[in-house]
């Protein structure tokens, strides 16, 4: 069992002929993901690493039965790629692209909510269900199947945690990178709800950072609805106020969104909070 992606995932890669799209298509195919199609307007009929290319997502869905899409197109075109995928009937869209303007994301979110479709990202590493499917850019060799669900706002920091768990022989059901933008498609709460309902997931790791109030809302949700043990880590204790720390969403505004406050609220909700990423593995091992 797992959440969102598994062996039934039939993936279409939007922007498959680009540098990033082609490179990561090869990695996803190698991993065993069912990459059934790619799109690149004007290049229909070509193939990339053996994957057939179509001019549009609706053609790709029609010919291959694709049910999930991953987007590698540049920021200016990414919102359109989301609209196209959802309009073609795709229910899970994963947007890797970094740098999408926040006002575009506001419209995308309103559109998704109307259509009942799910977006993971943007500005995220995607997701991986070890041994079944890898959708995005998470390295396949640092995960193993097991009982821990991971949800995170960052990329490489999450790799650290996966690696630390894997090194200790602790595997994962699914790892989801929800992205570092101020407005994104999937929240911590969405993933917590899915992990809580997933029979194979025994505990959850949540990796947050400064900025916004996603972690605070997740804490309230955990307190009221999550019975499985949750371990968290919050990055940015040393971050100064008012400065954007790389991620567009990682900024302490008007004194709100500090790491100390998030940690305090998570602890009050019964979440164990690690002091550093490697300690997450200790805490997870202790409650197995």
């Amino acid at each position, binding site marked *: 069992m797992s959440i969102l992606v598994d062996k039934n995932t039939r993936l279409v890669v939007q922007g498959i002929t680009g540098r990033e799209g082609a490179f990561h298509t090869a990695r996803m195919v190698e991993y065993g993901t069912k990459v059934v199609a790619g799109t690149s307007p004007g290049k229909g009929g070509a193939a990339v690493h053996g994957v057939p290319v179509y001019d549009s997502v609706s053609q790709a869905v029609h010919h291959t039965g694709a049910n999930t899409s991953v987007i590698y197109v540049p*920021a*200016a075109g990414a919102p359109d790629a989301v609209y196209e995928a959802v309009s073609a009937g795709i229910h899970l869209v994963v947007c890797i692209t*970094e*740098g*999408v*303007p*926040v*006002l575009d*994301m*506001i*419209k995308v*979110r*309103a559109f998704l909510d109307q259509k009942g479709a799910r977006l993971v990202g943007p500005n995220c*590493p995607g997701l991986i269900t070890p041994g079944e499917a890898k959708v995005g*850019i*998470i*390295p396949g060799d*640092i995960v193993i199947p097991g009982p821990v669900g991971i949800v*995170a*706002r*960052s*990329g*490489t*920091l*999450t*790799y*650290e945690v996966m*690696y630390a768990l894997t090194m200790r022989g602790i595997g994962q059901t699914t790892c989801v990178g929800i992205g*570092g933008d*101020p*407005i994104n498609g999937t929240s911590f709460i969405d993933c917590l709800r899915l992990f809580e309902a997933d029979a194979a997931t025994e505990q959850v790791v949540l*990796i947050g*950072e*400064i900025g*916004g*109030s*996603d972690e605070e*809302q997740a804490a309230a949700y955990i307190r009221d609805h999550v019975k499985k043990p949750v371990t968290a*880590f919050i*990055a*940015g*204790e*040393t*971050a*100064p106020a008012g*400065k*954007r*720390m*790389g*991620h*567009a*969403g*990682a900024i302490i505004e*008007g*004194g709100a969104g500090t*790491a100390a406050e998030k940690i305090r609220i998570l602890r009050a909700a019964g979440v164990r909070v690690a*002091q*550093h*990423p*490697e300690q997450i593995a200790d805490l997870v091992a202790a409650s197995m």
Partner: protein
Amino acid sequence: MKLHEYQSKRIFAQYGIPIPRGEIATTPSEARRIAEELGGRVVIKSQVLVGGRGKAGGIKLAKDADEAEGLAGRILGMDIKGLKVETVLVDAAADIRQEIYLGVVIDRAACRPVLMASAEGGVEIEEVARTNPSAIVKTHVDPFLGLRSYQTRDVAIGIGLARCLWKAFHKIAAGLVECFVGSDASLAEINPLVITGDDGLLAVDGKMLIDDNSLFRHPDLAALRDASEGTWAEAEARRFELSYVDMDGEIGCMVNGAGLAMTTMDLIKLSGGAPANFLDIGGGAKSDKVAAALRIILADARVKAVLLNIFGGITRCDEVAAGILEALQQVETNVPMVARLVGTNADEGRSMLADANLLTATTLLEAAQMAVAAAHGAS
């Protein structure tokens, strides 16, 4: 990206928002000429990208052109929170009866822009939020419907605005939302919006932040960037598309990924040190970018040790190693460096660095502890 007050107000004016008559000056004599043209009392306002200009003495009222010239002479060149005043705005002084606050920001939790107003203008909205939150009236802006007139009426009623001002208030609020959306802003703020003695409304001070991610479609706004925004290192990092924030510690760090870069800083502190900077080289960085990053870190004389933490994914550790070697050829340094390379091509990267006299670490915590020990040994 932050805009100056005068830039923000000029953009407001394009959206029909009334602003005081005024011009910018870079010399006292220019300030005199502007004050003469405006006639009467003027306000001399330093244009620097920090808050608290008034308290720092960077905003003064002049009764005539003579005084304007003298005050401009004192304000130009003044140091406000580390920034030198190069430009002043000379505005006609407003006849202020009351000050209110009007602003638009993104409400992340609601996934909508939100218009906020308060009868307590002239003070920071965060201050009002702390001391008197009920004084702030809010309304969300639907991305497809925009701001409707009933909403601005509700806000006007909420802040106790006189009926005779509702129409003018709607025009300004709707203009501000249009300006916010049209400029891809993350903040558009009029503080204070002044009710004048003759029952008019006037945007006396303005502030805008533009979403950096949107600058590709706003070349006109991108051209407004003040090259002096932030420190030298931050401006230099921007040139190489590196994400960099200055800190005041002694350990420079270079990391791939924003979350991991913040965590690396946190672990330096946990190990008893203090980070000199935040630096994310981004995904898939090539050697020239890595070399630029290391040059920027080493240009900071306070740096007593450098910590390089790379978790290879799209970023290849051998590319990073090549960049480090390139930088070390360009910059002579005896600052101790700790490198931790994991993931894609880490073995190749480590063997390239073997002869470069770098310390190597396996885990992140170990790397942070080694960097702190090296910094303290060096100082």
